């Protein structure tokens, strides 16, 4: 089968690999119909996630058709069309049982700090991902959810990560009616977090990024205010000023480790890897939120340390809430929102690229070429 193959920082290609096999009675093999490239993949692509082994296939956002099931799979059958959450979860451990499906204890041997994730390095379990024609899906009775009648592949694929993550970012922010929400990052996640902030009753939603085309997109799609931090002398002062010097009620970090905007952070975090990515957006979030406010983090950082003003967290009495999105927990609600037209995921898709051109798609997404917001890869077997 065709599969994306990681060769080193900023180098990927398409190669032939063996079709995956059932290795556990609860496995399924899924034939991929759509798979996305995500901002999270950029941390791998840039070589910043430890234990990213050459030869691995990335891709944690995919939907497809069940091709084969293991002897102990009962809820799925061959031919079912499924949304596969990016988290691999057993459904039985103490964490899964409490709906912390992103924190499963039976899916990632290599690190206890994160559950298994498809195509996300050996630090997230060493699974091959969905930027391929076929994927092995463990615990097939737990994560995969049948795509409801009438929902198309493009909407479905964004329910594997982008919609739940954006939604959970807003949910963790504990938004109360009338709150001012400031979101750092106008990538797919930030745009979705901005959209979802309204669902929780935000009074004002502000998104901050450096790419004008993304800000423009957010203004329309998320119906929010959007500002370019390159035009600001200091984003924190900007937020203070625009909130009558109080600070935002809530700040959301939807940027993570590839943040721009501060030379010291960029050099130590992204070039020298002396910290687990550049923590510029989180730094700004902590300093922009009001006293007693909430910072919600969905931006992904590496497993070591980051330079953040933790003293201010103490002195301002902040609450920090963060997690990998618990996709399975949120899917029922979000499927409803999509079916009722409240969330329109596929409008985020700007590029549909044949899987064979995966290297160009990575480059385009990573360098923000051609006004790219969200690229979707389509394998040749999708049409079979």
């Amino acid at each position, binding site marked *: 089968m065709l599969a994306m193959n990681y060769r080193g920082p900023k180098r990927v*290609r398409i190669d032939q690999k063996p079709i995956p096999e059932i290795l556990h009675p609860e496995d399924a093999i899924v034939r991929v119909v759509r798979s996305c490239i995500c901002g999270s993949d950029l941390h791998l692509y840039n070589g910043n996630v430890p234990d990213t082994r050459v030869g691995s296939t990335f891709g944690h956002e995919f939907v497809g058709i069940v091709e084969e099931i293991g002897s102990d799979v009962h809820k799925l059958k061959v031919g079912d069309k499924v949304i596969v959450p990016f988290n691999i979860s057993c459904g039985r451990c103490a964490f899964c049982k409490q709906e912390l499906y992103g924190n499963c204890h039976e899916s990632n*041997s290599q*690190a*206890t700090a994160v559950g298994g994730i498809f195509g996300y390095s050996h630090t997230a379990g060493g699974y091959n991902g969905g930027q391929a024609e076929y994927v092995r899906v463990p615990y097939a009775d737990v994560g995969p959810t049948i795509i409801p009648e009438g929902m198309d592949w493009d909407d479905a694929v964004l329910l594997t990560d982008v919609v739940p993550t954006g939604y959970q970012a807003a949910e963790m922010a504990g938004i109360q009616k009338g709150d001012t929400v400031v979101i750092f990052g106008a990538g797919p996640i930030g745009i979705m977090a901005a959209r979802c902030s309204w669902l929780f009753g935000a009074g004002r939603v502000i998104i901050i990024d450096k790419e004008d085309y993304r800000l423009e997109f957010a203004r329309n799609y998320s119906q929010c205010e959007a500002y370019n931090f390159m035009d600001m002398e200091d984003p924190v002062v900007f937020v203070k000023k625009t909130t009558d010097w109080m600070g935002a009620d809530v700040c959301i970090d939807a940027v993570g480790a590839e943040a721009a905007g501060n030379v010291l952070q960029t050099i130590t975090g992204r070039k020298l890897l002396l910290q687990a990515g550049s923590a510029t957006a989180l730094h700004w979030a902590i300093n922009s939120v009001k006293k007693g406010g909430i910072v919600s983090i969905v931006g992904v950082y590496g497993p070591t340390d980051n330079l953040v003003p933790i003293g201010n967290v103490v002195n301002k009495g902040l609450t920090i809430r963060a997690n990998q999105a618990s996709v399975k927990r949120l899917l029922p609600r979000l499927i409803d929102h999509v079916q009722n037209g409240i969330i329109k995921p596929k409008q985020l898709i700007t590029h549909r690229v044949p899987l064979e051109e995966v290297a160009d798609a990575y480059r385009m997404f990573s360098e923000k070429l051609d006004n790219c917001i969200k690229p979707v890869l389509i394998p040749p077997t999708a049409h079979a």
Partner: protein
Amino acid sequence: MEEQAKDYSHINGWGIDADPKNDPTYPMKHRTNEEHKGYSWERPPQQPITMEVLHSIERPNVTAVYGTAMPPSGLSGMIRRFAFKHSENSYLHWLPLLVADRVNVVEGLIEDVAEGKVPNIFSEKGYSADWDHNRSGLAVRAAVGAAVVGAVVLMCAGEKNRKRWFNQLMDR
């Protein structure tokens, strides 16, 4: 919950201010405090361990399922094995892994060549996307690259060679 089963009567005031609503994990965690029982759930059947699976020393075992993408091999594999002797809490875990990743890149190149494949770096880096959407950026990149290579070559060349290089470069 479990706590009630135990007797804390010897601790004056135990639990008098407990407030179940004081739970910042709501609504993310459907709290049952399962984990208070320890690692005691009925585990899923074990995926047969047919390859080397490194596991964090912060857990006692390999998880019931595991990924089979790339078992450790070669020099990078040796470094990874060393890393996994240290906990996720230690730099001796993460920094060697980053080194192993870089060593692995070189192994990847060697492997390609051994299989008679010459990696097409231009296409692996997706530069045709620049060709389509960012031609000027690509040109600048190429020019900067050429200048850097040129400067390095000049610096490395001896005085005499340097002159020759310079003359050649200037087409003299």
